[in-house]
């Protein structure tokens, strides 16, 4: 893999991590008023998949959208401003953390209803196909979405109509040991392996370790070629392991902010996140890999991290300084 791309992956994943950590700070200071969802632990999936997309391809996401928007090129300042409900946000603060979208980046609308985005994504793909366009659509969604009927309705319809759509399911509750497998670890779905289900609909499926950014990128790039040539929808199961801070409705920074030095020695991570950092952290793992392969050295890594932290500091400042939206923002959209 080309080094530029590798560094881009690393930077994007770090950017997501730092933005998400900032959200926890914003929740602590009351800037985020209600519960919210973070992408920590899934950065490689969103980053790898989005890197394979063309700039004008469509992306759909969920309540857990921050990372997807940033991976698609979203400006961290506008993302954070949206998350805290400011007029400088992508939607002027009307959508908030559950709904970050960026129409100008091919993310026209984000639903926070489980399964809500899926048929809309299929509709966009349907429009593209009718016009014989080349734009692909990729829909991120969680394993829980496979408990909702709309998933099956959409899958069936997408397969019947051979829509140019990647169903990118993020199974974020897989243990580290099982991540390379395909079994279903949930107590809420009866399937032994979730990807058996789309296959029963005739949809081709692939399972990927969602903490491996290069693997995700390679898989999605290959599928997108086939999608663009009309081979119909595909289903991807991206398997990640839940970050300990993500249990419960209000994320907690259990081990403090990520210290990039953990890439040199993951065992130095604090108690609450040590095992997860060693086995399941896609950012630390990738930084470690690039170090190991000599793509970067420790100093370069620190420099990149410092750069990203600076960028996200500026983004947070932008968000905080962005004015509250005023009632006029509600006008004329009835």
């Amino acid at each position, binding site marked *: 893999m080309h080094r530029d791309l590798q560094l881009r992956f690393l930077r994007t994943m770090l950017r997501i991590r730092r933005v998400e950590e900032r959200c926890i700070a914003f929740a602590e200071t009351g800037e985020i008023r209600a519960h919210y969802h973070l992408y920590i632990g899934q950065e490689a999936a969103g980053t790898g998949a989005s890197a394979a997309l063309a700039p004008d391809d469509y992306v759909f996401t969920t309540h857990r959208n921050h990372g997807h928007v940033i991976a698609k090129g979203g400006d961290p300042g506008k993302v954070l401003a949206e998350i805290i409900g400011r007029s400088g946000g992508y939607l002027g603060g*009307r959508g908030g953390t559950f709904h970050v*979208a960026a*129409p100008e980046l091919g993310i026209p*609308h984000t639903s926070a209803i489980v399964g809500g985005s899926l*048929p809309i994504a299929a509709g966009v793909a349907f429009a593209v196909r009718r016009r014989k366009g080349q734009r692909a659509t990729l829909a991120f969604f969680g394993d829980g979405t496979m408990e909702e009927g709309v998933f099956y309705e959409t899958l069936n319809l997408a397969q019947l109509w051979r829509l140019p759509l990647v169903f990118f399911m993020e199974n974020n509750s897989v243990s580290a040991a099982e991540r390379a497998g395909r079994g279903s670890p949930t107590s809420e779905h009866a399937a032994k392996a979730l990807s058996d289900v789309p296959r029963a609909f005739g949809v081709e499926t692939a399972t990927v370790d969602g903490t491996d950014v290069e693997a995700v990128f390679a898989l999605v790039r290959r599928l997108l070629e086939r999608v663009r040539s009309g081979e119909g929808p595909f289903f991807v199961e991206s398997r990640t392991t839940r970050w300990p801070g993500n249990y419960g409705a209000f994320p907690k920074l259990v081990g403090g902010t990520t210290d990039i030095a953990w890439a040199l020695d993951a065992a130095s991570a604090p108690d609450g996140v040590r095992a997860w950092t060693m086995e399941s952290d896609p950012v630390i793992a990738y930084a470690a890999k690039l170090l190991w392969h000599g793509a970067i050295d420790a100093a370069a890594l620190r420099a990149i991290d410092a750069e990203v932290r600076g960028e996200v500091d500026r983004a947070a400042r932008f968000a905080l300084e962005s004015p509250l939206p005023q009632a006029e923002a509600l006008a*004329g959209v009835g």
Partner: protein
Amino acid sequence: MSVEVRAPAATRTLKFAEALAEAVDEICAEDPRVVLIGARFTGHTPSAHVMEPVTRKHASRIVWPPISELAYCGVAVGAALAGLRPIVEMSTATFSYEAVPQIVNEAAVIAAMSGGRVRAPVVFHMLYGIRGGGGPQHSGSPQAWWWNSPGLQVAMPSSPADVKGLLRWAALRSEGPTVFMDHQRLMELEGPVPTGRHEIPFGQADVKRSGGDVTIVATSIQVSRALEAANRLAREDGIEVEVVDPRTLEPLDRATIFASVRKTGRVVVTDESHENAGVASGLAAIIAEECFDALRAPIRRVAIPPTPVPYAESLERALIPDTERLVAAVRALR
């Protein structure tokens, strides 16, 4: 059943179903962005067949979806986001219950969330009301729910001219999502329809009959019933009833309604949805709030009593807000 409409220069007499079919035909012909998801606009009514030449002619513009209301309504929303102008034909309105999440919680909120930058110009067409032998599950009238859901436009045409004019406007000009509700029993109604590209922008009520004694604000099929009642009341009681048809609930032409109420001081509101928090209640509440000083009698509602609609004709009859009940309501005002 036949309704007098003040006719512009050139008109022909068409059935409601024919005018509807003509509108669909023209819409498809004039705008290549239009796609039909389902196309049984005329249901199982005696005039069902008038759609046949239209669906044959525009077969390439029609997709017939699986029985997946939630997904195909979402597909329509997505297609609209991507630049198509989809019309979803859902058949019996109760089937739309399956799609409430996509209609109310996606289509309706998109424009507001993006400050109007993203728009979903989609039409959800459905056949509502007590059609005769539909029983408790196929006689539903959900118009009040749509009106209660901000971000949706709601059209309820009462005549052949109006169904054509309103559907053309919704499909070709509207920037927002529309729920378009035709009563199953209107299909046979005859009336004059202007030749040419007759369009009626939303938000323009129509005085279907002038009169100085009592105002009946009536939607959809209730307009025919109100006109019958008016004729009877003129003949038998010398009461001159003015019949005001809002044509669209959202946007609502309050001025025309208020002008009539201020003139007569006596009002009956009627709609074939259930009484409690139904459309008649919604209209009555607005009038009670805005025209109080003009009122000289209680605002009477004629709607479906709060009972699920039974199957037997003898029981159905007890619930239909028919001419008889309108006559009685007007008489009770004096």
